[in-house]
């Protein structure tokens, strides 16, 4: 994921005003355009836009991660209705709309997170709802220029210029121009659509150097310790202040757990899939009343273990992209990075955690 290795053939240069043109062209072609807009003061969210005017360019990251566009907070899996003859008519919701979607302006970490989601949703069963949307989505990522204080992408194999899963990675320049690095066929198609707006970059064009995000820990060391520390007292200490509020999971770009519920009345209903969270006691509670993860310690452990041990074991990658949302959202100051650096210290034979 080093920007220096980019094939110069795929690099385009876009003139000032390219964004407006791009949005207009896409909208004109009937494509749904998603871009960062300021929804609340100081808050940026990825949402459908009607023009380029509302697009926010100066932001650390969107409040909700990109995943919500492909794996919504709630979605209908099927509908059913009782017929007058007593039979029940079941209608599966069609796989996500065939409409093409172009997401302009997601951050590299959010986009890279889709790799983890792709693996989960295509693992032993192809999730048509997810993959339908995924196929129709083109991702025009904006490289990071000013990472936030909680960002730690470089610790988990990412970078502010990570192009993983992006179709085009855009390097915005201060004067409104941009370098567009095409990363996939979809990306090439997008650049084609832009026509004159984007021209191949002159040979020898250099990508800007990525801003510094300090690496804080080594995931391999963390995993080493995790492999041996399921029963460690560390979990009880580190989870003392955790209220299990779930904000970290809900905002996480790679968390993908869901709950399936039926919402029905006397004659008809819907089966829905909703985001869920392993920090909640109900997440693992059995109908019998037994809860295999009975306390916050075991739930906190699950969250760390899943991201840094189980997921790598199953899919060969860490389920964390270092976006820092969990730390920003936590109202009791639970800091994933400090938990992981603590673990690393322990792995190296050190001690004491910061509870």
């Amino acid at each position, binding site marked *: 994921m080093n920007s220096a290795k980019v094939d110069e053939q795929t690099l385009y240069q876009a003139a000032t005003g390219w964004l407006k043109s791009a949005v207009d062209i896409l909208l004109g072609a009937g494509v749904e355009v998603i871009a960062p807009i300021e929804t609340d003061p100081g808050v940026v969210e990825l949402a459908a836009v009607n023009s380029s005017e509302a697009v926010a360019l100066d932001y650390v990251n969107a409040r909700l991660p990109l995943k919500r566009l492909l794996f919504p907070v709630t979605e209908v899996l099927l509908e059913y209705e009782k017929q007058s003859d007593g039979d029940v008519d079941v209608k599966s919701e069609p796989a996500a709309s065939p409409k093409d979607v172009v997401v302009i302006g997601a951050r590299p970490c959010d986009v890279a997170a889709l790799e983890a989601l792709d693996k989960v949703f295509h693992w032993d069963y192809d999730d048509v709802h997810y993959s339908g949307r995924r196929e129709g989505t083109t991702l025009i990522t904006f490289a990071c220029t000013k990472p936030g204080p909680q960002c730690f992408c470089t610790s988990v194999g990412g970078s502010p210029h990570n192009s993983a899963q992006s179709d085009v990675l855009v390097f915005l320049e201060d004067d409104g121009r941009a370098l567009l690095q095409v990363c996939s066929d979809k990306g090439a198609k997008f650049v084609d659509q832009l026509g004159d707006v984007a021209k191949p970059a002159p040979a020898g064009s250099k990508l800007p150097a990525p801003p510094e995000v300090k690496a804080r820990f080594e995931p391999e060391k963390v995993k080493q310790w995790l492999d041996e520390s399921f029963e460690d007292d560390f979990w*009880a200490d580190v*989870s003392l202040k955790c209220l299990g*509020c779930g904000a970290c999971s809900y905002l996480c770009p790679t968390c993908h757990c869901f709950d399936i519920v039926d919402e029905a009345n006397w004659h008809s209903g819907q089966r829905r899939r909703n985001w869920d969270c392993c920090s909640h006691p109900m997440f693992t509670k059995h109908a019998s009343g037994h809860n295999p993860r009975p306390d916050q310690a075991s739930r906190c452990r699950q969250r760390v273990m899943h991201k840094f041990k189980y997921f790598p074991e199953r899919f060969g990658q860490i389920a964390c992209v270092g976006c820092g949302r969990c730390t920003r959202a936590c109202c009791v100051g639970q800091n994933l990075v400090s938990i992981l650096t603590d673990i690393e210290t322990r792995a190296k034979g050190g001690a004491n955690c910061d509870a």
Partner: protein
Amino acid sequence: MSTNTAITEPLQRAAAELLSEGKVAVVIGYGMDGDSSFSPPLFAREPQEAERLVFDDRCFGNLSVYLSKDHIRRMGKIGIVVKGCDLRAVNVLLREHVVKREDVVLIGVPCAGQGDPLLGKCSVCEQRNPQGCDIVVGDPVEQPQIDAAQRYSEAADIDAKSIEERWEFWSGQLSKCIRCYACRNVCPLCYCKRCITEKTVPQWIETSAHLRGNIAWNVARAFHLTGRCVNCGECERACPMDIPLGAINQKMAQLMDERYDFQSGLSSEDKAPFTTFNVDDPETGIL
């Protein structure tokens, strides 16, 4: 940010003393965290850990939420640092038998307000000096006289809207809700062993994050806190979607204040307005 040494030092001493004398098993207070933009909760279980306790103007959290948590209660007797506003929540917990007075040592801290600029709730705070604590560290701070009309200014902004504007406003705000229940989990008074949303037979509240379910959830939450909520604002602080939940709670608190002359948590003896009645309570609007 400025550490209040006039409080921090005696606080550390008092906590160390309680711990070393074995009077409490843990002191829940605020600690310094270099990375955080506020002073997060800290659990001191050994006398030397008390040195890490601080009190400053970034102690936003209402620590009384931990009083109902099983993993904290299992430690034994709890010493807890409370600001005057937090004490109101403790009073409700005492009234509702969640915690027994003898199982907790209240370490009161005078507080001239949190945040810079001052949080809205702090600028109208009427409990700057906690009353009825076991220990109070530091000197009392000046308590400005607060006009009753100022108490509920957040609600007033929305009250000024027309009914259609309010629907517009709230349907927009509540549409954002992702049903993470952070508001519930940080609320000191949402201690139910089983939340109403978790009861599935019947499922009164749809758990899907659509506006219909979100309204049901937020109405239930607000109603269950009516006459109980002490307006600590933790729900709003925790909400990852920045929904102005505090305004709803404030509106209901205002109603209880105006109708039944009741402010929650001023004492642990008061009866909650929904557990009592007056024969001549107002009944405007009943056919």
